[in-house]
């Protein structure tokens, strides 16, 4: 009797943890239905099932589905393989590519529950983030990235054949060293597309070379000379933050194909730039949605209790935040922080307290989907935190700040999760996620065009933080690209600059 009623009400999509392609399809359809119900806007999905070995391959190319060949990816692969085989690490359950259609890799080892979680997380969470966040919309072109990567790989291979593997490898090494300085932080970039790239590439080669030749013309026109001498002291006229771009356009020694490779590295850096700026938001968003969607599946009676237990177990471990004094502590968990903020936004909309009304008068009691959707679209980590980190999240996570000043003997607890500390913590955390303060601010300040052609970079030291030990090595790479002396001037206390690093060709 009992069992017959069970059968009548049993709408479970599956009973065991085994997955099949039919089940993937069924689960996916349900997840898609729920996501659409909520109003998530996504690219079409392409879900690919891969094996553990293939996952390691995907890891090693930092998630590029097609990458040019370089030893550093091999190094990455070897270290992943080694650690995986020894059991030091598990592999991620999924990798998702910001492309249109949005490609998500699922590992074949996953159980049905994990596959469902991953589909909700990657194919709906990350996917909608990629499609709608302003940084991704501005900086990346999901339609053409795969084509561009393909173009890049073929181009690099062609160069290897024509100019030698070693030559290309050295160039790529140098470009990689400066990869983080191959993006425009403020200027809106042009979109890349395969057709244009191939069509324009050759014209560009010709054009670029002529430009460069002009720039380095050794016979300046006389009457201009006197006039230009004054402003020659500072060229470029404004500091250049995009060092690779500057190299590509102005290096006196690079050949055309080398400029093209610099450009490829630069374009790829630019493609990944938004991901580095939206870690908390992006992971938080995807986690929020897999949690919400799977719970809806359960509420509708589509999944079993066993499924739900497995789901909760793995969800909990994903969002576990070890306290600072735990030996597992390795920094703030972006999944946890992001999820907490989104969930608290939802709570503020649904059950606002007086505190919320004071802190968030605009959104308290509003429509939660509209609010988090807006938050997802229009911010990056830094501004997202400074806008939405609520006192409750600070209290729940028991956040506190420690001030470490090498001028002082001891560390100081500068704020904790109390009334006085909320705003302080919020702005400090926002600052912590500001890429500009995590990476040294280095810009091309001056090139001695008429003299020894040396390049001067300026490091705008922030709070007296010095450059790291690798700086000299990076400069060697920069010299390889520039061909002449390169030096770094760092900002000192008295607002003056002093040369801290210098590297000469042949050194």
């Amino acid at each position, binding site marked *: 009797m009992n069992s017959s009623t069970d059968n009548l009400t049993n709408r479970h999509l599956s009973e065991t943890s085994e997955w099949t392609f039919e089940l993937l399809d069924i689960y996916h359809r349900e997840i898609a239905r729920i996501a659409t119900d909520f109003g998530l806007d996504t690219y079409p999905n392409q879900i690919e099932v891969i094996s553990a070995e293939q996952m390691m391959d995907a890891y090693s190319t930092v998630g590029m589905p097609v990458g040019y060949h370089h030893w550093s990816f091999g190094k990455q692969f*070897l270290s992943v393989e*080694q650690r995986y085989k020894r059991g030091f690490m598990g592999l991620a359950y999924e990798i998702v590519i910001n492309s249109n259609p949005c490609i998500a890799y699922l590992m074949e080892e996953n159980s049905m529950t994990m596959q469902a979680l991953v589909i909700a997380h990657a194919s709906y969470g990350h996917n909608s983030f990629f499609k709608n966040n302003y940084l991704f919309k501005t900086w990346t072109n999901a339609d053409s990235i795969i084509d561009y990567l393909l173009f890049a790989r073929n181009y690099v291979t062609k160069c290897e054949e024509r100019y030698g593997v070693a030559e290309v490898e050295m160039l790529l090494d140098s470009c990689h060293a400066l990869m983080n300085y191959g993006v425009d932080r403020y200027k809106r970039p042009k979109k890349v597309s395969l057709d244009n790239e191939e069509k324009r590439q050759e014209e560009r080669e010709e054009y670029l070379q002529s430009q460069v030749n002009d720039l380095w013309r050794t016979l300046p026109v006389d009457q201009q000379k006197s006039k230009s001498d004054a402003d020659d002291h500072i060229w470029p006229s404004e500091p250049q933050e995009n060092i690779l771009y500057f190299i590509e356009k102005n290096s006196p020694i690079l050949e055309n194909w080398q400029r093209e490779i610099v450009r490829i590295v630069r374009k790829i850096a630019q493609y990944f730039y938004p991901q580095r700026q939206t870690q908390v938001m992006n992971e938080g968003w995807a986690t929020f949605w897999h949690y919400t969607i799977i719970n809806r599946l359960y509420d509708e009676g589509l999944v079993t209790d066993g499924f739900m237990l497995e789901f909760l177990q793995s969800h909990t471990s994903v969002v576990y935040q070890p306290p600072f004094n*735990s030996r597992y502590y390795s920094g703030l968990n972006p999944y946890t922080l992001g999820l907490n903020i989104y969930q608290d936004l939802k709570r503020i909309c649904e059950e606002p307290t007086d505190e919320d009304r004071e802190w968030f008068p605009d959104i308290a009691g509003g429509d939660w989907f509209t609010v988090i959707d807006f938050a997802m679209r229009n911010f990056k980590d830094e501004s997202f935190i400074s806008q939405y980190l609520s006192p409750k999240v600070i209290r729940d996570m028991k956040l*506190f700040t420690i001030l*470490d000043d090498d001028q002082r003997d001891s560390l100081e*607890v500068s704020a904790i999760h109390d009334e006085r500390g909320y705003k302080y913590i919020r702005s400090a955390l926002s600052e912590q996620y500001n890429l500009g303060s995590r990476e*040294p601010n280095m810009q091309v300040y001056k090139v001695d065009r008429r003299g020894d052609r040396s390049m001067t970079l300026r490091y705008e030291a922030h709070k*007296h933080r010095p450059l790291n030990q*690798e700086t000299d090595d990076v400069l060697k790479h920069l010299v390889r690209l520039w061909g002449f002396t390169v030096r770094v001037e760092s900002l000192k206390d008295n607002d003056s600059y002093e040369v801290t690093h210098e590297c000469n060709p042949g050194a």
Partner: protein
Amino acid sequence: MTQIIDRRVNGKNKSAVNRQKFIRRYKTHLKKAVEGAISKRSITDMERGEKVNIPSKDISEPSFGIGQGGERETIYPGNEEFTSGDTIDRPQQGAGQGKSVSDSGEGEDEFTFALSREEFMELFFEDLELPNMIKTQLAKEAQYKKIRAGYTSYGSPSNINVIRSMKGALARRIALAGPHKRTLREAEAELQALLETADETDDRIIALRGEIELLKQRIRRVPYIDTFDIRYNNRVDQPVPTTQAVMFCLMDVSGSMGQYEKDIGKRFFTLLYLFLTRSYERIELVFIRHHTVAKEVDEQEFFYSRETGGTVVSSALKLTAETIKKRYPTSDWNIYVAQASDGDNWTDDSPTCRDLLINTLLPQVQYYAYIEIAEENSPIGSLWREYMKVAQASSRFVMQKLATPDEIYPVFRKLFEKQWHE
């Protein structure tokens, strides 16, 4: 539009190229590691992959970053006892404790990974070359490999190709029954049309019914499957060329050769054997030991039994020559000889050895390597002196002295370095 794709069928070695690039780049490091491994390893497991360590700083990819020092503020979760304004003593390691647990997981100073067996051997024997590889004969007993070669209409039942057979049957059925089916359809259509106007007794209807019955019978008579349809997978024998080699290990086991000397000899033989396995599919080993008389023995006895007495090297050379004549005709075999000795010989025997080598053995063998286990500047024995003359007479003969196990690899390299391009 959603697509679910099974990519597992695709190759899994997308990173193979990058891996190779990495290995090429750090070849010098890897070679050092491999050479180190050789001297440490026991001989029996020489042929295995190897875990290799490279100092991390040698393979790091530098980038601009902010170093230690200055003023910084970090957020931590899980506050328990602190209130704002508390001061804490600076931990020993200074700032940046949050980052000290790096994601590299293990040893910060060393980058560790495993070389596969092939990669290991490749590095191990790199730049070495087998001399006189000209003779690569077909093996005596020709080896054959079965390969697929389409289909035949006769064969054994176990080779029936079902799909192909059923395709044939289907085609035949369509071909044979097709015309009847068309007529049948027409007849049935006509009957249908007639039935609406006339009744069962109409002549035309009766005739049509008869015709339909006949057609149906004809169609039924076309067999579903006929012996004629059956196809068998065809396989033919293709000769596979195999190269084969025989390696003679000659060792002096007289009283003067202790276990230590034998061990060095063994290592040398092992290296040569491994080296040969890279070039030949089939290698036979012949162990000949000698004191005053030579004897062919098995590997165990060769390396571990002890004998006493004097030394007559020529006995071993004679036995080798005889064995070659008896079992390993030079037309079919590539012959390599490695001899290890401490250099002792009965003085009058040495010239005999020289003549034997020059006149009988060397014309038959690809390569003859002699190692003398003795100090570099030990007194020159009669055997060494005579062998020097052999070495001058033939490029197939090489000789080296070695004293300790760690010299084996360099000596081996010296013997087989690529220098054989005339």
